């Protein structure tokens, strides 16, 4: 496979995230980039990936990327549709989900996530949408993948609010929650990939994208970043990866711009 194409940082991030999904896994998918990455993986190396959206659609195979977490396409192509209380109790909390795929507004060095507020909780400067299902996914999915565009404002030393637990303060603190989920397995940004260190569970840079220097990654991080002894250079998106992703996004744009027809 050639890798001659040019690509955007967003595309690299989406492709990278999709590569982390393993065929046959049960994947609880959030909307946006996680959904794009999961659906890309299905079309590339993970045709038997099991997608669950929190709208209760189990083993769904959306034909285009859903705009919302409950688009009709998800229902029409699902093996089963269950209620929201059921999807959270019988499927997520019971430990049937291998990978939870989360975005956020802020991440800290231990993979804890904020999607709630910027500023004080009671008088926020920016009120974000809130946790939704993320706090539950972060607890119960066997492992979590976090995808987040990187800057010192998103990779922060101290979260304004902890919406979803990563490794808490690290060094085994999460284990004391006594839940089935093991916490973040990886953080994927538009600069590279971070994984928890074995001892402190602090995220460290383990891989960077082609042409992205370690120094710029350190500068885009709001805490003193640990860098692995050997930082791998990720291979650029292949022609096939880019083609499949772009086709999917094109189909998605077409589908979502198709005018709807109301029965009145």
């Amino acid at each position: 496979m050639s890798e001659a194409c040019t690509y955007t940082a967003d595309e690299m991030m989406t492709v990278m995230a999709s590569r982390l999904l393993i065929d046959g896994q049960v994947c609880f998918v959030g909307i946006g980039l996680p959904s794009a990455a999961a659906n890309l993986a299905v079309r590339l190396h993970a045709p038997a990936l099991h997608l669950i959206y929190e709208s209760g659609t189990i083993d769904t195979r959306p034909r285009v990327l859903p705009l919302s977490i409950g688009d009709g396409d998800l229902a029409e192509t699902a093996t089963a549709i269950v209620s929201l209380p059921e999807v959270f109790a019988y499927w997520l909390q019971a430990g049937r989900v291998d990978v939870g795929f989360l975005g956020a507004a802020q991440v800290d060095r231990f993979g804890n996530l904020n999607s709630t507020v910027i500023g004080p909780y009671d008088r926020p400067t920016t009120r974000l949408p809130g946790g939704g299902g993320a706090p539950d996914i972060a607890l119960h999915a066997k492992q979590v993948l976090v995808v987040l565009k990187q800057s010192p404002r998103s990779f922060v030393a101290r979260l304004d609010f902890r919406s979803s637990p990563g490794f808490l303060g690290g060094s085994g603190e999460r284990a004391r929650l006594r839940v089935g989920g093991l916490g973040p397995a990886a953080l994927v940004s538009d600069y590279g990939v971070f994984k928890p260190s074995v001892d402190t569970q602090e995220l460290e840079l383990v891989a960077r994208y082609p042409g992205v220097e370690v120094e710029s990654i350190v500068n885009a991080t709001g805490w003193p970043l640990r860098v692995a002894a050997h930082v791998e250079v990720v291979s650029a998106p292949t022609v096939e990866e880019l083609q499949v992703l772009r086709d999917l996004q094109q189909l998605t744009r077409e589908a979502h711009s198709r005018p709807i027809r109301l029965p009145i």
Partner: protein
Amino acid sequence: MITTLSAMIASHVRDGDCVALEGFTHLIPFAAGHELIRQRRRDLHLVRLTPDVIYDQLIGAGTARALTFAWGGNPGVGSAHRLRDAIEHAWPQALSWVEHSHAGLAAAYTAGASGLPFGVLRGYLGTDLRAANLSIAEVVCPYTGERLATVPALRPEVTILHAQQADQAGNVLIRGIIGAQKEAGLAAHKLLVTVEEIVERLDAPMNSVVLPHWSVTAIACVPAGAWPSYATGYYARDNAFYVTWDEISRDRQRFVAFVDRYIHGTTDHAQMIGLLRADGLLP
């Protein structure tokens, strides 16, 4: 029990009520929400897993004093600007809120539907939500000693749902993504339902989700009553409008103008749809 939307809202929703409009992305009772605005309800305590565009409209229009929720935004698009403006700047009035996770709010509805005073989940651990929401408490498992989170049962005065069909007797069929609609509906003291159509016989294969008529307080036939949300089997989600809403709702004046023209300026949902079409906001 089959009536008009305006009569249904006039009869059953009081200022100050705790009201849940449910529908998880799918079957959101938009027309009923607009009717709450049209009838100028005030001081509502709104409950919803995902206060998205319909609650953005209700809050921006000044119907709400409180919100119980888990995720508030414009799905796939971005912020719920009117919700943000209410929380960040108390516009058009102050809004208090109680914040849950999805699993927590689902457990609260389920407890309400089950006649239990609380719901139990393994949740809120390691989050600041626990401290932000003082209604979250704990019980100790009598067998294992594990501490589990509890949420108080939700019993809204009124839950409003949108569904595909009702039959003449008032049995209601919900198809497709069902979210927590049944739980929210059965948790409420009164359950109001708008439907796409009233039929002789429900198109309901065995094991469909059907609410028997005696669990429903009132029904109104409102075709396209979920627009810009959708109704499986009837019409698709108007994703374009969700994007347009981002522009309309960013600006207070534009928002007020929208509400004045399309909601207060019309007498019912069909007229509103007509006006949106005339203005090119709907195909």
